[in-house]
């Protein structure tokens, strides 16, 4: 069950990182969500053949990874794992689009390759933005922020419970799978004979647990509504953060920064 262990490890790793205490961690979670959203929308809004204008946006993950002390390895790992699918679809671009796009001395780069590189860049930017959000904010803060932003309460409570019991269930499943693999002589993978009973019994235990939780909730006065005590603080630095990055993103969207820098370098005006 190699897949299982490694995914679970990643989950725990990100959760631990989220408990950090850098300036970025201390920012208001709503601000961080909004900044991430603006970033993602700007990245997606570029046209198909845009490569150079995407490059300055790499500054966002680079700066945050450093300021929030997030090791690049966890991001890189995720990128590598998710890469095949995007490459699989994206590779058809250079294969199908042979229109000439760029002349690099003797080398002619087709638009197909340009759009492929664009896709890869978007991919990297999008993944890092999402992982950085979670690694600097944590599930609990994200849920609080969602509530503040008027996401339906039923859904946010659902997220909270899911996350709370995820670890319990993953541990239970891990024990069950270990017990299975110790007594099954073949390699990875559940034999179909046990699909029903292994998963079914896990399901029963899960539902029994839900019943017990429900009783515990009743004992403490549960009446259908989950009440939370949360304090939200919005400081000037929070707003400055949002404003600063937004201005940068929009600038990168409107001005071709590399082109401009290159023009300076090459001496063209």
């Amino acid at each position, binding site marked *: 069950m190699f897949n299982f262990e490694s995914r679970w490890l990643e989950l725990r790793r990100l959760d631990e990182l989220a408990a950090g205490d850098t300036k970025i961690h201390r920012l208001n979670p709503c601000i961080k969500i909004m900044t991430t959203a603006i970033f993602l929308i700007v990245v997606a809004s570029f046209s198909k053949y845009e490569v150079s204008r995407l490059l300055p946006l790499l500054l966002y993950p680079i700066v945050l990874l450093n300021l929030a002390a997030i090791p690049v390895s966890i991001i890189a790992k995720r990128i590598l794992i998710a890469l095949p699918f995007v490459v699989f679809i994206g590779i058809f671009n250079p294969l199908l689009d042979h229109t000439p796009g760029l002349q690099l001395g003797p080398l002619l780069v087709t638009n197909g390759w340009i759009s492929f590189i664009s896709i890869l860049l978007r991919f990297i930017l999008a993944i890092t933005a999402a992982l950085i959000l979670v690694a600097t904010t944590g599930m*609990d803060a994200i849920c609080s922020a969602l509530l503040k932003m008027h996401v339906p309460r039923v859904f946010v409570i659902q997220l*909270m419970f899911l996350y709370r019991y995820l670890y319990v269930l993953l541990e239970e499943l891990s024990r069950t799978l270990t017990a299975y693999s110790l007594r099954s002589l073949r390699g990875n993978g559940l034999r179909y004979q046990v699909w029903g009973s292994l998963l079914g019994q896990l399901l029963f235990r899960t539902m029994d647990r839900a019943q017990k939780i429900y009783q515990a909730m*009743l*004992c*403490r006065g549960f009446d259908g509504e989950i009440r939370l005590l949360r304090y939200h603080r919005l400081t000037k630095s929070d707003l400055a953060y949002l404003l600063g990055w937004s201005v940068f993103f929009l600038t990168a969207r409107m001005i071709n920064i590399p082109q401009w820098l290159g023009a300076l370098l090459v001496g063209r005006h």
Partner: protein
Amino acid sequence: MSHHIIEIKDLEYTYPDQTKAVRGLSLRILHGESVAIVGANGAGKSTLLSHLIGVLIPSAGSVRIGDYPLNKETLSHIRRSVGMVFQNPDDQLFMPTVFDDVAFGPLNMGLPPKETEERVLAALATVGAVHLKDRPPYKLSGGQKRSVAIASVLSMQPDILVMDEPSDGLDPYSRRQLINLLKTFRHTKIIATHDLDLVVDLCERTVVLADGLIIADGPTLQIFSDDALLQKSHLERPLRMQGCPICNAKAD
């Protein structure tokens, strides 16, 4: 004075699958008493406890807690005065952080935020877990979870504490901490447990259940000296009341 007296009369309970778990049980517990409920697995301990907190409604007989008879209308009152600590703390700590769990009860009782916070910190201080308040439950050790589960009940300031296997799974140190903590509580305590040594430390009165009936009810040390009774109910003497292995070996 009927304040905080628990009165159970001829209680019977049959589960949906027709198991008769409790077959006619009568019990009276006074304010401030510490009572242990012991017996073999399946004797009816958990079922009895479930009635005390209103999770189950009697098939026959009655349960009265303080001024309130146990029925659907009085449930919310009863739940305010009886706090239950479950056997598995994971079933009890279901909120994202320790603070949220301990605040759950007071918030449901309608307390305003400031008072809730005071109660939470007080409850956590009592169990020595204030430093854990922002942690998610899965990051706690067994002993810490147990403490926090107790705090989550204390914050509602109940008069009666019901506990199901409180020392289950605790290492010796945590177990000792727990016993010392419970010794300081003035609440009425009802503890269902296999840990007979804990009973000796905490409970002056013991009730023995077997097959859904009470077969003994009296002073703890007296009950634990009655070997015939203990054997009939699938129990043994507490370990500290059995022969010391070193001394006995020397005597041979």
